């Protein structure tokens, strides 16, 4: 294995900038790694070595010609398969989109290309990002590089495992209720869900429009900061995108200082239901932050209790409408029943064959929640809870600059373990969902290994909307303290994967 692929993105871009390595060399090293391990890990749904290498060669040529390039030019990246790409199929993990090549690039993809980052491939996800394990991908689950019998988190298990297995230095994910943060937590990687509107959703195949947000996945905090700085910014194509810049995340990640910061521990997100190893590591990090000069305060968010219930009404409601466009008329799968079927029967047969069980479950839930007679009891009530949760956060941020909690109650579970129990699966997101409901940024940072199973756990940092920089500042500082104690990065504790062919 080339040592290059273990390096942080921040180091790689320095080497690229100095001309010590070429983008082709770096891209090839990652493609080789995928050849060696992705048969087992299954991070990618689609890879095309020639497109990635030609983008890399183009950057090398331009660099050789003395052109002034973007800071990250030449750094390969993986992209979640729910972002549209003109040169690769975009399936969102669904049979209904199998083989569909979009005629346009998502805004995030455009920014990546414009900066000269070769795209290594499209990463796996639960179908339409509905799930916490990638087990609902129509193309089979991804596996956790720490233990291949376990899930890599979801929905963005492709992006977390691709980074954790050194197949890519950085990746793009999307987070609707924890799809960046939960996978990061269970694979010992970093992931940030930016403030709602910080990154354009144009070209992101929508799950729930009011909750979805695109963000970075990496092996350390600074690398995520560099990627967020690349992809964030106003986009006229997304009317929910913020007009203003949130400043430099990379600068924040380089401060490495938490002195005087007020850090709030959320009372409701610990204790019962949280694995002991998760809680032990969390408490240690609270102490570390305190020792580093942060002021620790306890905050209460009493309405978080209702967050999952509200989320599982708002999300399916929006999803049921967003997914209506998959009707066989203009793109994607078309299944025509025997005989001389009407358009309604073709639509029904296509959706019956093209959508998987979790997608159907949520479409039915959402359709019901929006129906007249149900609306006020379900969707309407959920919107009220959403407001209450926003108020909880507003009150908590009066007392604290940053809030912290474990990212997830448990470490990675076994593949198949929760497949038949949707409610148990939904509970993985208990700590991550409130941030999506409130539109605030949330980051998961590696937080050590659980005593009982030796698997990674994550700590979640939350900040008020538009204050993503605080997460990068505290996250990077905590990461530095951890690495000083451990003597190496968290990811360096991961077992070596068996290398094939």
């Amino acid at each position, binding site marked *: 294995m080339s040592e290059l692929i273990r390096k942080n993105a921040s180091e790689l871009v320095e080497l690229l900038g100095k001309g010590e390595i070429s983008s082709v060399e770096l891209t090839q090293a990652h493609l080789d790694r995928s050849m060696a391990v992705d048969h087992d890990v299954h991070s990618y749904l689609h890879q095309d070595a020639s497109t990635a290498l030609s983008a890399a060669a183009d950057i090398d040529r331009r660099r050789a010609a003395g052109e002034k390039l973007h800071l990250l030019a030449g750094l390969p990246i993986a992209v979640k398969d729910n972002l549209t790409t003109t040169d690769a199929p975009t399936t969102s993990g669904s049979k209904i989109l199998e083989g569909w090549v979009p005629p346009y690039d998502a805004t995030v993809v455009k920014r990546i290309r414009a900066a000269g980052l070769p795209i290594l491939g499209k990463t796996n996800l639960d179908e339409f990002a509905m799930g916490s394990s990638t087990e609902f991908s129509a193309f089979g689950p991804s596996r956790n590089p720490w233990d291949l019998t376990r899930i890599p988190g979801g929905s963005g298990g492709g992006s977390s495992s691709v980074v954790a297995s050194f197949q890519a230095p950085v990746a793009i994910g999307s987070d609707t209720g924890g799809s960046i943060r939960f996978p990061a937590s269970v694979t010992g990687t970093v992931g940030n869900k930016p403030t709602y509107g910080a990154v354009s959703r144009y070209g992101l195949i*929508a799950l729930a429009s009011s909750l979805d947000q695109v963000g970075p996945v990496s092996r350390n905090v600074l690398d995520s900061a560099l990627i967020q700085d690349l992809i964030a910014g106003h986009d006229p194509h997304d009317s929910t995108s913020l007009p203003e810049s949130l400043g430099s995340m990379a600068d924040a990640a380089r401060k490495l200082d938490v002195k005087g910061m007020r850090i709030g521990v959320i009372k409701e997100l610990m204790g019962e239901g949280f694995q002991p190893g998760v809680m032990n590591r969390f408490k240690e990090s609270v102490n570390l932050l305190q020792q580093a000069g942060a002021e620790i305060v306890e905050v209460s968010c009493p309405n978080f209790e209702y967050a999952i219930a509200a989320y599982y009404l708002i999300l399916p409601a929006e999803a049921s409408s967003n997914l*209506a466009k998959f009707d066989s008329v203009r793109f994607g799968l078309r299944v025509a029943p025997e005989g001389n079927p009407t358009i309604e029967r073709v639509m029904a047969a296509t959706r019956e064959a093209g959508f998987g069980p979790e997608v159907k479950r949520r479409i039915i839930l959402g359709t019901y929640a929006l129906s007249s007679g149900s609306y006020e009891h379900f969707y309407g009530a959920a919107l009220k809870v959403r407001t209450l949760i926003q108020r909880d956060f507003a009150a908590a941020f009066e007392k604290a600059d940053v809030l912290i909690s474990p990212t997830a109650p448990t470490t990675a579970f076994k593949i198949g373990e929760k497949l038949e129990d949707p409610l148990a699966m939904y509970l993985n997101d208990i700590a991550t969902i409130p941030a999506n409901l409130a539109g605030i940024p949330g980051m998961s940072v590696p937080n050590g290994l659980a005593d009982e199973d030796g698997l990674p756990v994550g700590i979640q940092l939350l900040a008020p909307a538009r204050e993503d920089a605080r997460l990068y500042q505290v996250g990077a500082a905590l990461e530095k303290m951890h690495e000083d104690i451990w003597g190496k990065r968290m990811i360096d504790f991961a077992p070596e994967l068996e290398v094939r062919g």
Partner: protein
Amino acid sequence: MAKDELMNYEKALEMFEVVIGLEVHVELNTKTKMFCGCRNEFGDEPNTNVCPICIALPGALPAVNRTAVESSISIGLALDCEIASNGRFARKNYFYPDLAKNFQTSQYDEPIAFEGALTVELPSGSVHNIQIERAHMEEDAGKLTHIGGSTGRIQGAEYSLVDYNRAGVPLVEIVTKPVYGAGAEAPELAAAYVRSIREIVKGLGVSDAKMERGNVRCDANVSLRPHGQEKLGTRTETKNVNSLRSIERAVRYEIQRQAALLAKGTAIIQETRHWHEDKGATSAGRPKSDADDYRYFPEPDLVPVQPSKELIESLRAKLPEKPADRRKRVQAEWGFADLEFRDVVNADLLDQIEETVRAGAKPQAARKWWTGELARIANSQDKDVTELEISGAHVAELTQLVDAGKLNDRLAREVLTYVLGGEGSPSEIVSARGLEVVSDDGALIAAIDAALAKQPDVLDAIREGRMQAAGAVIGAVMQAMKGSADAGRVRELLIEKANA
């Protein structure tokens, strides 16, 4: 189509009170569509004005067209509506192949404009103050063409084609509150209301307002109730009636049809109905209930439209005159008799005559050309007079050429056909084709002499005061000069000659 039993109209009105409600869809003439940058253009090759947004490809997002919002606010203001400080879009969910997203982005409980009124005056002199419930923004659907089958409808078709050029074209839907008390004039009032809406949107310049192209479409709700009953009767909604005449006929038909059913004790089915211009009848569409479940919810992909007070006031300042005020003003300015003016209004010629007068024509001359010769030509071509390819300036020029004696009536009509044929302005045509009236005395005298040579008695007759004898010579001169002689001048010269 089964033939409906109809009740005599007068009898229907004796038995029942008519309540109507009108929903008018106005297609805005913005350069681009409501939520994307595609051209908003009628008649282009199918599926050429489309993009990932308006054909709803996965990942695409809408962005609101600012001009469409301003146009909608202007329409709201022209209808004396309140303008919402927070106008939210909503999704109206239903599956149909012309609706790319399978939901229509519309407005539901927070329309951009609400609580307005429009005064409509009928030729009888009755004045109706129509209450406007709301005017909201939404997008048009694509256009389906059903191939095979006999009806041209989706039922029985072999297959259907979809053209998404119209998908996402901005619409404003204007909804009235129930309109009471029009009695026998209800059909006429319905048409007059839509005419006023057309005038307003045309005057604002926000729509091409051509009903034949579907720029303005009306759904007419009609219900009957026994006189004195408070509870409204069951209504039908006749969809997409695409001319003013059809609106009037469709409403009248529904009154007669419903009255016949109610008189027999048969309940009216709440449904949409289709108007068939050829048969002069409506037919049942789909059943419609108030409980139709479109699962409306706020559109999460769009932030609410929040027009500033400054914007609203600047749009208000630019509002044109109200149709009723304008009519009063121009009728007085032009000095038209009531009957003359009614013809002009009914023929939708206010704009044309105003433009013609503004270009220098005398009002009566403008009226005569538009309601006379031009209306006749349009009629012979089975067109609406407003569709003729001629500007008010051209008509004005024609009247001025006639006034100046350069054209006589016959020549002017001839020049008009060349203008309509696209040959240019009247003066250009006159000089290019050499059509000017001959007033060169030398040529006229020569022609008069030639005519007198054949009718030598005429000069004596004139001297004796028998002026009618002059007619034969004038006619001969006109004939000799192929109609291009100035008949008045010929007469003068003839008299001079007799008295010389």
